[in-house]
């Protein structure tokens, strides 16, 4: 299910700024609008606040200025639980919850009292090359790459309308990376899921996105991915 998502003049202070001339903002005046299912690559050099922006979009962090609207309702008047179920965040460092792989997959069902969609769980595990894993295995004993994919599947079982991905393929090999990309492209196409994907891999950004947000020098510019990658404007990012 698609959602209308608006970002208005978002700003976050940089509390560690102290040096003369250093901006007191980590970023400011960030605005964007998503009115139909999109695939957005969020790129920029390290330390520009990409992960912070993603966390703010998931309401795990709070903006110091500006507003966020989901289907016309400001985050200030929204129930954070309902918001996070619609705008779901997948962290860069995959955290396995105590218990088995199956316990992790059943998290959504347990939290929200919904029946567990075993067929979808199995299908997603297969699509990401995890079908060989014993579901009774302790999740904490899985490899870094397996954990990252399990954490993605755990979130996909929420069926969010907007998926916030913080370097979702950072600990994966090429084969697994391509499987994740294919799966997410498929979810976008079939379910209308909007993807907002932080990545340092510009080739990946090119492959997966139709829009590119470049966060640089405390601000954010938006480009059509086709135009951006054919004639890269974000020189700072490329260098």
């Amino acid at each position: 299910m698609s959602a209308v998502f608006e970002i208005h003049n978002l700003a976050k202070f940089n509390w560690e700024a102290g040096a003369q001339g250093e901006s007191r903002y980590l970023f400011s005046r960030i605005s964007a609008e998503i009115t139909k299912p999109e695939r957005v690559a969020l790129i920029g050099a390290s330390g520009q606040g990409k992960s912070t922006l993603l966390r703010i979009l998931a309401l795990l962090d709070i903006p110091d200025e500006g507003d966020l609207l989901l289907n016309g309702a400001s985050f200030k008047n929204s129930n954070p639980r309902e918001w996070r179920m619609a705008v779901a965040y997948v962290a860069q460092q995959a955290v396995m919850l105590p218990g088995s792989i199956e316990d992790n997959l059943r998290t959504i069902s347990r939290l929200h009292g919904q029946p567990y969609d075993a067929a979808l769980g199995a299908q997603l595990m297969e699509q990401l090359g995890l079908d060989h894993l014993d579901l009774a295995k302790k999740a904490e004993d899985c490899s870094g790459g397996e954990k990252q994919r399990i954490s993605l599947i755990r979130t996909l079982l929420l069926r969010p309308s907007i998926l916030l991905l913080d370097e979702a393929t950072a600990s994966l090999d090429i084969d697994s990376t391509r499987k994740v990309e294919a799966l997410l492209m498929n979810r976008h196409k079939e379910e209308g899921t909007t993807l907002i994907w932080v990545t340092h891999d510009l080739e990946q950004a090119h492959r997966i996105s139709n829009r590119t947000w470049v966060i640089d020098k405390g601000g954010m510019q938006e480009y059509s991915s086709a135009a951006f990658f054919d004639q890269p404007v974000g020189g700072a990012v490329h260098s």
Partner: protein
Amino acid sequence: MTLTALSFTLLFVMGTMLVSIWQKLGLEKDIAVGTIRSAIQLLAVGYVLQFIFQAEHMIYVVLIIVFMIGVASWNAAKRGKGLPGLVWRIAVAILAMELLMMGILLGLHIIKATPQYIIPISGMTIGSAMVVSGLFINHLKHEMQQNKGEIETLLSLGATAQQAMQKVRARAVKFSMIPTIDGMKTVGLVQLPGMMTGMIIAGADPVIAVRYQILIVFSFTASAAITSMLLSMLIYRLFFTADLRLKLPGNVD
């Protein structure tokens, strides 16, 4: 015991202070302060109890129990620097425990409804609840710092604060009860508890003394469990903002 005989026990303290000076441990001041404080506190409580036992009025019993809960709560809350409103939450947990315990002990006529029974037993269970509360808060803060990722993962999946904290709370409750349970397992084998020892020295039949000690051991276990669980219910929300973001206190003691 005469006061002269009692004063000879100061030899232990002086010996310890001399060892501290000789070994340059720097403990002399703390030992001196501790000795004077404990002597004054205990002598004062002796006179207070004497007065209450003679007065035979329940209002004094209530007052002394309220005072005990106040001191215990204030002391345990020191473990949770950075958590606002902790003192009254601990006080509520300990008070609820005390009401429940005394309700059962008096309601079922397990002990007599006199200050001689109510005050010492309350003092012991409140003291135990204070230790448990301090341990619980300390461990909960530690768990929160260690498992920030787990809690935020659950929040990002739409969990309530209660759901996000469930495992962390359970681990902290379990941890806070370890000393009580270990004490229960080894009581009489490793150490002869204070109450029983006191009764035997005062001339009571050891079997009668043991009965009271069993009562205390069971009360301790129940009070530890009740206080820790109630406290976990009362304070978990302090780690979240109103809009359900994780809020960790600055430092872990």
